[in-house]
């Protein structure tokens, strides 16, 4: 690493990027080899050693206390006290420091805002402030863009540029090629725990992707034009609340036809999750109707909806999709365990479950040591394949996939996409929700853009990205609404966020 350099670390899920960085940050101990800082070997016993050596880290999952203010979070672990033995916290000084750092690097963080009120993008900047107030020279960002909207990502890249200008070095861990090309000075590609190559940002996406997975990958989805049939899913006037009793879905009308993929694009948190959960019977419908092949399904239990021929890939696989302690085989029958041949009456048929698991593992190329291995030991991509395999292994009328490839490596993305398209081609209606615009554009035959609980436009897949991006920000082509775009599109800074939430 050179001073003032942005070094991207690129690799598939499970390639060892995060492990390497955890070693750098002193969380794990190296078994062999050494770390050199300014030419001197360094032995790190814990994160405090790393901070002392000028290494700071922003984790993929933020390490912030939600009910504390920004200042309090920044102080945490490095509390400054006054009053001698009485040890009063010197909040004022810490606050000044936060304000100053935030000012210097143009991070725009309000020191008095409470973390839980802040959008994710701002929370991330708080993490950066936290690292910077500890005087680090090297900042490690572990998959910082995984949770950000496109606009927030853009802002983050700006922040990274200003940090670079101030002479800080940044290690940027990601598996998104576009961002790497946009910002990195140097790219190191890691595969299966080994450095497989260094590239310059001028390298093409395809070259980088090939380095990453070790072969040539198709980034675009190959598919024939759709031949839509009868409407399978019809949603009209749907109104759904979220957990906090706030309106999340506010009068949505949708139709998905057999043999077509309807993609729902939109910045996360605009009601997509609630919409899908309402269809699945996981969330009460307040108004409106949902029909499946003409039959109304609102009020149905989730089991009944699944049994009616709906396949569902939930957006958060580790929370909603899989039971991590269960074996791969058990997870493969999680929703049909009580149906023949897996269950008969009260009893379970382990032989049938194991046998079917072996077939699914083969068919869906799930990389696991055995069907009996706990699913939590699999990499993210393979876990996702388990869910996809489970849902696609019974005859479906409607297939709903929410964020089907989030946190999944390039190789698995390709496979999952081909499975989705195959499902469409055999006449299933497919509904794909994704915050990755590329994914929606690649998969969908029609794209519905969701914004603040409404569908604000349905466009074809050939629509230019910029136009869809504007729709995602709430700007419809025929009316220019700067007021709306201001509040939502860019991650609003501290104080501005309150009225957005309200």
């Amino acid at each position, binding site marked *: 690493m050179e001073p003032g350099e942005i070094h991207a670390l690129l690799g598939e899920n499970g390639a060892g990027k995060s492990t390497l960085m955890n070693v750098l940050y002193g*969380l*794990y101990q190296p078994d062999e080899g050494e770390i050199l800082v300014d030419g001197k070997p360094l032995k790190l016993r814990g994160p405090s050693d790393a901070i002392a050596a000028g290494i700071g880290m922003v984790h993929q999952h933020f390490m912030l206390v939600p009910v504390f203010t920004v200042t309090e979070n920044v102080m945490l672990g490095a509390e400054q006290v006054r009053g001698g033995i009485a040890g009063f916290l010197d909040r004022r000084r810490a606050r000044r420091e936060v304000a100053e750092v935030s000012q210097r690097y143009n991070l725009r963080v309000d020191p008095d805002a409470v973390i839980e009120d802040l959008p994710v993008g701002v929370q991330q900047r708080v993490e950066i402030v936290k690292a910077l107030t500890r005087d680090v020279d090297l900042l490690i960002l572990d998959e910082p863009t995984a949770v950000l909207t496109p606009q927030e990502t853009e802002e983050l890249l700006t922040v990274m540029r200003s940090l670079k200008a101030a002479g800080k070095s940044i290690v940027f861990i990601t598996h998104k090629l576009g961002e790497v090309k946009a910002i990195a000075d140097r790219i190191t590609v890691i595969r299966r725990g080994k450095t497989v190559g260094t590239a310059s940002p001028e390298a093409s996406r395809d070259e980088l992707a090939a380095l990453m997975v070790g072969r040539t990958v198709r980034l675009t989805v190959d598919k024939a034009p759709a031949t839509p049939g009868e409407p399978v899913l019809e949603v009209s006037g749907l109104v759904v609340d979220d957990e906090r009793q706030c309106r999340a879905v506010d009068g949505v009308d949708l139709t998905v036809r057999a043999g077509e993929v309807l993609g729902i694009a939109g910045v996360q948190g605009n009601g997509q999750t609630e919409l899908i959960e309402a269809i*699945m019977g*996981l969330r009460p419908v307040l108004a409106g109707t949902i029909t499946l092949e003409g039959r109304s399904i609102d009020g149905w*239990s*989730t*089991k*009944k*909806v*699944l*049994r009616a021929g709906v396949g*569902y890939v*939930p957006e958060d696989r580790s*929370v*909603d*999709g*899989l*039971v*991590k*302690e*269960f*074996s791969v085989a*058990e997870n493969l029958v*999680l*929703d049909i*365990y*009580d149906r023949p041949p897996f*269950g008969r*009456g*009260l*009893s*379970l048929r*382990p032989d049938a479950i194991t046998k079917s698991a072996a077939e699914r593992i083969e068919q869906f190329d799930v990389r696991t*040591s*055995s069907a*009996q*291995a*706990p699913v*939590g*030991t699999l990499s993210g991509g393979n876990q996702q394949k388990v869910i996809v395999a489970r849902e696609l292994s019974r005859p479906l009328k409607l297939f709903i996939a929410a964020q089907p490839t989030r946190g999944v490596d390039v190789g698995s993305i390709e496979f999952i996409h081909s499975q989705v398209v195959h499902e469409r081609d055999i006449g299933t209606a497919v509904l794909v929700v994704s915050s990755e615009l590329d994914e929606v554009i690649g998969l969908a035959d029609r794209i519905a853009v969701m914004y603040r609980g409404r569908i604000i436009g349905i466009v074809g897949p050939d629509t230019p990205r910029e136009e869809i991006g504007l729709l995602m920000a709430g700007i419809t082509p025929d009316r220019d609404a700067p007021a709306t775009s201001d509040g939502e599109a860019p991650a609003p800074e501290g104080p501005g966020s309150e009225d957005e939430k309200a």
Partner: protein
Amino acid sequence: MTTHPQPGSPDKEPASEEQAARTALGNTERAEPASTATPTQERRPTLGRLFLENLWAANTFTVTLLSLVLAMVVGAVLMIISDPKVLATYAYFTARPTDALDASWALVSKAYANLFKGSVFDPGATTLTAALSPISETLTYTAPLVFTGLSVALAFRGGLFNIGAQGQAIMGVILAALVGFLLPLPPGLHLLVAVLAGAVGGAVWGFIPGILKARTGAHEVINTIMLNYIAVYFLTWLIVQNGVQDPRRTDAISRRVDASAQLPRLFDDPLRAHAGIILAVLATWAVAWLLNRSTLGFELRAVGANPDAARTAGISVTRTYVLIMVFAGALAGLGGSQMVLGTTAAALTPLVVAQIGFDGILVALLGRVKPWGVAMAALLFGALQAGGNRMQSYASISLELVTVLQALIVIFIAAPALVKAIFQLRAARAARLQTSLAKGW
């Protein structure tokens, strides 16, 4: 005991902790092939060597055994401290250490010898009855603990912490006793109805926190504790009511359960072992089948491990919670019913169920919330209790020491890292040792 730095301290091994998370709740069978696969890649060691290595490696069995040893060591220290005569010999320890050591050894060895004689086998026994007596006593104490242990373990696998086995056992014993002395039924049928009544009593007492949890999200720990209080005072009140209280007595004791409603004995008088232990084995088998081989068990384990995923896969989490608590309550109720249908007592008293509900929590933990493990743990606790009686009368060591021993065993089991550090066990199987208590709170 020197304090070496612990290589296996949980907070220093994120990798193994993560592994532990998935193995903690009974997936150790699956983790096994993965962890044993590594040594076979090297030169194949002989079977005997492999056995010895595995024995000393920190596996569940070794740690349980060593916890027992450690608990007995601490127990020995307590015995010495609590005996004034022995303690007095330590006053001149430097002058004549043999006095102190001899006295301590005599005390401790006598106590533990009696513990063994009272629970397993008495070498001095001359008749068959005397030889069978310790085992019979052990089995008598074991039977109800198997049920309450299974009750806690079953709920735990479903993600619920059933602190209410005590209250459920009390409701079980109440209904079983009422059927036992109020309903005039023919022998056989009378017993069957009484046993079922015990199960129903516990099931009702389990259903209440279950439905509250499912419908309102009220935490089952709080509610089961509160229901324990209600049950115990209900029992105290009920005993002195007309028709329930023994008409010939003025103190708080109920009428006796009819002979036709009592569980048959396994041996002749005076051996107390009764058919309850057979029911306990059947119940263990039934719970094992339920958990591992039934669709309901699949739902239960899925809900216990990840309720969100279970719900998304169409499993009704609320229904499962209610069912879990009903089953757990029924098991505890069956355990309670044995306290009057068996040979321990034949009438209700305020303390008729003793501590079987709370001991059930320890038994479940010691048995690592697996059915057969629970049965084994109950056997150990039963043996400690049976032996403790003899230890009290022959070696004048108070029965409370047994309770302390039980508590110490569980503490050592709950802190496997401590046992590992003390005995310098290989960390290879660290993942399997994490406490099963870590989850659920």
